[in-house]
């Protein structure tokens, strides 16, 4: 049980680190945080799948 919890925590931390790193490297991710950090500001950028 303890081992399982440790493994779960490890995977969650790994995902958190990778996602944050990717977010700061990728221009799209940074845009999302900047735009949504101001409350109730909608994303003005057209979603990529509609382009």
């Amino acid at each position, binding site marked *: 049980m303890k081992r*399982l919890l440790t493994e779960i925590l*490890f*995977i969650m931390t790994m995902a958190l680190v990778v*996602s*944050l790193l990717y977010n700061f490297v990728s221009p799209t*991710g940074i845009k*999302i*945080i900047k735009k949504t950090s101001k409350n109730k500001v909608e994303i003005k950028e057209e979603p990529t*799948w509609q382009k």
Partner: protein
Amino acid sequence: MISFILRIIVGGIFLISGLAKISDPVRFVLTLREFDIFPEIIVPFTAIYIPWLEFIIGLCIILGILHRASSFMLACLIFIFTIAIISVIIRGMEIDCGCFGLLADMLKIPDMADMKAVIRNLIFIGMCIYIFKAKKTAFSLENYFKKV
């Protein structure tokens, strides 16, 4: 051997769906907003974190690294998705479930938040439970490292 086949199916699906969401985070943000469950402040962080969690769990399941923990986590994740979809159905909304992100558009797969999605998720949960219960699984990196 059955757990290996299930690992490939479940892991592959979540690896690909994670990648599809990572490639188009804006769409995932919009989908999460449509669900109208999460507070606005959490939405961007959820949209950034969940696809990577899916991707890493899918990778772990396919490669057979920490397969018990990853299958347990995946079952929990799918359970949360299922609750979200059920809440959408109860509220009578007809929206995209966003399960496969960009991939659904590319392959023209129906990706609506309806009962089909709930049943599909329940099947995935069953597969995850089978993988979780399997003490040993074929062709896993974990077994390989134990032997070396």
